[in-house]
């Protein structure tokens, strides 16, 4: 944390500002850990025989990473950028465009697309795109963060009163 106020941080953010997340390479081991931590044991992520089959019109040709691992990677990219600036992560919307498989490396890229001041808040809107190692986009998203003077919403009850 710096000594700047949240308002100062907010004023220094500009439309078009960009930042990237830490690249992530899923493996069968990370998929297993994700499943154990999230309780999502869908065979899409484990069963090679099952994944050799077609799914209606889709054939994945092998096990795939949990889409929500991608969601978590995007969230981490945003919160790691927001927290030192006093920003509070408010919203994330994502679409999965193509599956991610063990051995792929994915990197979220974020662009500040909009800033707005409402009656009660300062807001930043982000465009998110996640790319794999072949520069194919695997996910798209939009996010919003709020930059309050004080983070009362996140404070424990006793302190907030």
């Amino acid at each position: 944390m710096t000594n700047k106020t949240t308002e100062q941080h907010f004023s220094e953010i500009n439309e078009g500002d960009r930042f990237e997340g830490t690249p992530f390479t899923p493996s069968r081991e990370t998929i297993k850990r994700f499943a154990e931590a999230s309780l999502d044991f869908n065979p899409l992520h484990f069963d090679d025989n099952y994944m050799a089959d077609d799914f209606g019109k889709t054939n994945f040709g092998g096990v795939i990473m949990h889409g929500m691992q991608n969601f978590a990677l995007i969230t981490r990219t945003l919160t790691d950028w927001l927290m030192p600036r006093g920003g509070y992560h408010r919203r994330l919307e994502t679409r999965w465009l193509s599956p991610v498989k063990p051995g792929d490396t994915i990197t979220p890229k974020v662009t500040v697309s909009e800033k707005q001041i409402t009656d009660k808040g300062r807001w930043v809107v982000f465009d998110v795109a996640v790319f794999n190692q072949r520069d194919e986009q695997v996910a798209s998203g939009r996010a919003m963060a709020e930059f309050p003077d004080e983070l009362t919403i996140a404070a424990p009850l006793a302190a907030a009163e």
Partner: protein
Amino acid sequence: MQAISTGEFETDFWKDAGARQTWDQIVPGAPRDTKPYTLTKEIIATFAEAMGETNPLYFDEEYARKTPYGGIVAPPTIHILLMFACTGTEDWMRSPGTINASQSWFYNVPARPGDTITMQGRALDRYMRKGRLFVIHDNVFTNQNGDVVCSGRGWTIRPQ
């Protein structure tokens, strides 16, 4: 780190698969059966670690106490775990082959260790498009004080 999954959680999603509602049976608007789930520091730490989080806010009480959060909180993504933790083995989100197409989530107060989280969930809509069967669902998670933690919508492609 200890795995969160305990003996009481069925990790074989094929088991009871026949008891779960298919696209044809899901009733938009009908609530899903849910049960409260209590978070602990260990669950939050294990979850955060598996999400790739390194922020001490999720792991280190002494650090977290000095932040505006006033103590350890769960990462916003904790709803990923809560959706499965608050539903039972017959819930249709466990149907093998369920494909996550899209998600949107809004975050209110953070979840904390000791919080008992309640889920309200339902399908909102179902439709077919280009040969695929879709369901839209929404979930709202609240803590023991009645504060909303987060609310979300998801689009899944149903197995057929």
